[in-house]
């Protein structure tokens, strides 16, 4: 699964937009959307929001958590704790990227938000690496990681699994039948 796929999944998230056109309900496989009243916020999936935004048909209302104060709080929390803190959106990274890339003009303090989210992301990924490292070095059989988002899992998954496989191979090939200290 590559990041593009995860991003694709993230596009299903709902986001509020303020359309500047008027349209009745539209009926789609995923459900009904609308009706669209100019000036009245309505919830639509991110993919539609971005599409409309690109056509200058709407303004995007940033999700509630996309706010410097809240993100700062999360960042502090994230730095303080060793475990992963619950994140307001399972797709925070993807959404931030998508929304900020396409409609930074509708989001107050876009740059700060970008930095904050990047900080949170870095902290979390660092934690993830660290725990993967200790997982391997201590030769644990299982580990529990809560509150991880799809994108985060995805960053390490292929690498971690491959390396575990290789290590397993190496270990079993090297000293069959004998335990070994690492």
């Amino acid at each position, binding site marked *: 699964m590559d990041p593009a796929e995860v991003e694709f999944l993230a596009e299903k998230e709902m986001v*509020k937009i*303020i359309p*500047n*056109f*008027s*349209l*009745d*309900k*539209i*009926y*789609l*496989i995923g*459900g*009904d959307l609308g*009706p*669209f*009243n*100019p*000036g*009245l*916020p309505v919830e639509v999936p991110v993919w539609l929001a971005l599409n409309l935004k690109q056509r*200058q*048909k709407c*303004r995007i*209302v940033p999700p509630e958590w996309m706010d410097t104060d809240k993100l700062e709080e999360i960042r502090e929390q994230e730095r303080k704790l060793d475990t992963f803190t619950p994140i307001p959106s399972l797709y925070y990274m993807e959404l931030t990227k998508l929304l900020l890339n396409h409609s930074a003009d509708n989001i*107050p303090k876009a740059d700060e938000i970008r930095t904050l989210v990047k900080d949170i992301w870095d902290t979390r990924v660092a934690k993830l690496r660290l725990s993967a490292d200790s997982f391997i070095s201590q030769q644990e059989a299982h580990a529990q990681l809560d509150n991880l988002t799809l994108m985060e899992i995805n960053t390490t998954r292929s690498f971690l699994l491959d390396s575990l496989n290789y290590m397993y191979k190496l270990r079993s090939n090297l000293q069959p039948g004998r335990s070994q200290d690492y």
Partner: protein
Amino acid sequence: MPCERKPMRYGHSEGHTDVCFDDEGKCVVTCGSDGDVRIWESLDDDDPKSINVGEKVYSVGLKNGKLVTAVSNNTIQIHTFPEGDPDGILTRFTTNANHVTFNSSGSRVAAGSSDFIVKIVEVVDSSQQKTLRGHDAPILSVALDPSDEFLASSSCDGSVAVWSIESQTQVAQWQILQKSSDVSNAKSLCRLAWQPRSGKLLAVPVDLTIQLYDRNTWTHVSTLSDDLISQVVNVVVWSPCGKFLAAGTVGGNLLVWDVEAKLCIERQKHEKGFTVCGMAWHPSGGRIAYTDTEGCLGLLEGVPSSSSTVQSTKAAAAKETHDYDDLFDEDDDRGLDEGMSDSRSPVKKPIMEEDDDDDDLMPATGRPRNRGSFLDDDDNSQDPSCVKLDGVPEEDGSSAILPAVGPAVSRPVYEGPMPTQPQRAFQPGSTPVHLMHRFMVWNSVGIVRGYNDDQDNAIDVEFHDTAIHHAMHLTNTLGHTMADLSQEAVLLACEGTEELASKIQCLHFSCWDTHKDWIVDLPKGEDVRTLCLGQGWAAVATSALMVRLFSVGGVQKEIFSLPGAVVCMAGHGEQLLIVYHRGTGFDGDQALGIQLLQLGHKRRQVIHGEPLPLSRKSYLAWMGFTAEGTPCCIDSEGVVRMLNRTLGNMWTPVCNTRDSCKSKSDHYWVVGVHENPQQLRCIPCKGARYPPTLPRPAVAVLPFNLPYCQTTTEKGQMEEQYWRSVLFQNHYGFLSSSGYEIDSEGQSRAEKEQQELLMKMFALSCKLEREFRCVELAEIMTHSVVTLAIRYASRSRRMALAQRLSELALEKASQIQEEEQEEEEPAYQSHSSREYRGSNQMSRRLAPVENGCEEEEEYPQEEQMDAEESTETRKLSLNPFKKGGKSPERPSPKPMSREGRVNPFKVSGAGKSSSSPAGQPRTTNVLDSMTMSNRKPAPLGSTSKQGKAPVLKPLAPKPKSKTQATLLQMSASKGNSKKLEDSQSEAEKVKPAPAATPPASAENIENRKPKTGFQLWLEENRKSILADNPDFEEMDVIKEGMGRFRTLSAEERLNWTERAKGDSDPKKRKREDEEGQVDEQTESDEGRTKKKKPLDTSAKLSAFAFNKE
């Protein structure tokens, strides 16, 4: 000799504050609980110098360039002044000091602390300390005698003590204060003050009075008091000359006495009545600075200070009559002045308001000033049109008015109702004019923003729907302050200045020629107060109490006068709504009148200047029309009221926005009201009354909620729902009566909802055994629903009730019949308007449809579904993504009649709602879809959902025969006025019912009237018609069908008619067969509404019961 109370301004965060002047009186120095000391050049100083001295500052003193502060870290600190550099710590306590003060020369500092100790420290050498011990509680205040001999202190232990500084002993003590445990609990701060220079008198605030003690004898010599003082005196200060004494109270009163005469010469009230906790007299006199516990700083200018004023004060008594004359002259002049030079200029508005959005914009709540005399009041009320300024120095009934009756007697205080300041004219949906970035209007069409800052004076026009027009940016050279926006034009206006006349500018962007705008100058001396746009016209209300109408292209049209100063106007379609001052309101209330005019071809006044109801002590905050055209108003208390046209144009409260506010200071700023769907569109403003322009606020939607009793109970809830539905349905009547096309689907949906609610209420009262109430409810019901009610009653074995209901039903039926006979002749014309006459008749035509719907659910395969419904079912069957609904056994091959293409993803949950694709119609502005129809829209579906039945009228048995039929069926012997054939067939149908009793058969019969030959023919041939003309509407199909049917030979036609006659019976049997399945199906269908089920199952019983009768 009035003194002027300058508007307050924020200095510190909330909490205790203190204030003093520097030696020359150039600066005001304040301290506050935010730990800052601020140095203000003047009250208008926007950027006071701020020195942070600690976490909290309790008291501040300033002399000889030394600033001493009592800080929360238990120290007394010195800072240099005006640089603000720290200059060491003077002394320390074990807890914080409460008051610190200099002696008159500035050589010593005295401080009193919460650790019961008073210290006197030499400023130059802080090791020279004297400690005074003897109080048994925290020290409230200290004061050093000008001759440096004594020190006075007040304490929470209730005592005021005078100490000899030299011997450090108490020389006098009075137990005159109330005891308290701590400074925070003390009623008063009890700031003491020695008379300057001589130090002869010591002023002590005691409760509501100020007591003066003599220095030589330490005895109480006199008391100063005033009737106005209703709460404890907090602070006293002497004027530098020692002749006057000023006091500030917990209640926010500021008073000045002439001590010798013991005469109160000045009474002022804090503009918000906050506690005054710091006062300082300007070194040259004439000015008093004060601070309150909310961190605000205020200034009294023109306070008497020289001996000459005293003279005049004394002379006042002699010149009494003369002064009265003076007073009148003065006031009259002012009134005139204001009228002439239109005092609304934004500059003059108090600066405070900007910070003060949270509070009432207009000081409508309570009269902040002390209105001294009757005469003064009278004078004001005679001049209601004059818009008083906040900032204007108000006549305060100063000493001149009053004869000095006795030494300490205060003048009489008028205690009757106080007139309210009339609220200013405003544009609905705008934020205050003095804001630099403001919304000039926000309505359902778009937003007009005004910028007026250093770089730019501009106006941005933005449309919600960019299809109307693209956004515009205008430079605001004329200084427009008012704006309105419609689908056709932007109307802007500015007030006149001395050189320039007041102007109206209209950008008529929908104009098709090249000149898109026009400007009109108003006559000199006449200013625009408020304006509005309607469809094809504009209206402007002016300071000359006039309303001027223009066409949207700029043609001047009617002008007329208003009975009072205008407050606001709103336009919608052809309606113009004007709110004006009807008179003077009292005690915070406004006295507003309202006029509603119809400016269409037939001009008339709908509301003739009736009083507009507002909440107590509130003013009008928004006024306008719902998108559907019903007048609506919102007051400052957040109560939304809507005009109830069916209740003699009364106002019904429909919502209180304050109910949904999380905190007290939150408000909702309303931008639009919609009746269908019921939406109150507003912008949540956290901690403010108005939203900022940036970040761009988002619109929220609030539901309506009528303030009915006991809405927690099921009954109250349903009642509220019912009446809300009725109220919000009124606009259909209005729209159709004024010739607009209406959303008949929405209307019938609302009617259906109402009937359902009635039925639920009926069931509820049945359960509660309240039979009388049941009958009452039944009276509101439509006829067909009454039959359901009867069935319900008889099923639940309430025969008496059922009996009464059936009588009622008969009554209703005969009523209907009468009306129908009346109706017969004038064709359709009266249909629609009749619909709205009364709620109880409102939806009787709906009944067949309603039943039809139920039937559709119960028998999806029923042949008798009309075309529309069957298409719906087909959609269901074809839709692979459908969520609910059952699979119809026989997909009807009929082509789609209404929509050319059908969206395969359209999920239609319940069959009913599916038939309304415009379930939530877009209603940005109903005017969008409102087009004047040449003929009355009545034939278009005032009866049935699909708008089909009336078209059939000329051919098929009329819908009314359906209702007739039900009637026949339930009261067997009644009504033979109808066609025999009809009744016969009905009778046939009723007969088999008791035997096998298809449960809903009775119900269905209404709808199962025998088909005519044409209908049968049409059913067969519809497909071919549609195939030929795929884009035909239902109506067109029928017309075409009629044409084709006529071309058939007579024989063929007869053949069809025969078939029609022989049609009903076989079908009957079929239905019986299917009965079982259907029942199972219904039972298994969990998603079904509850209401249907009992009816369905009950039908068997009821039919039985009726038969017995």
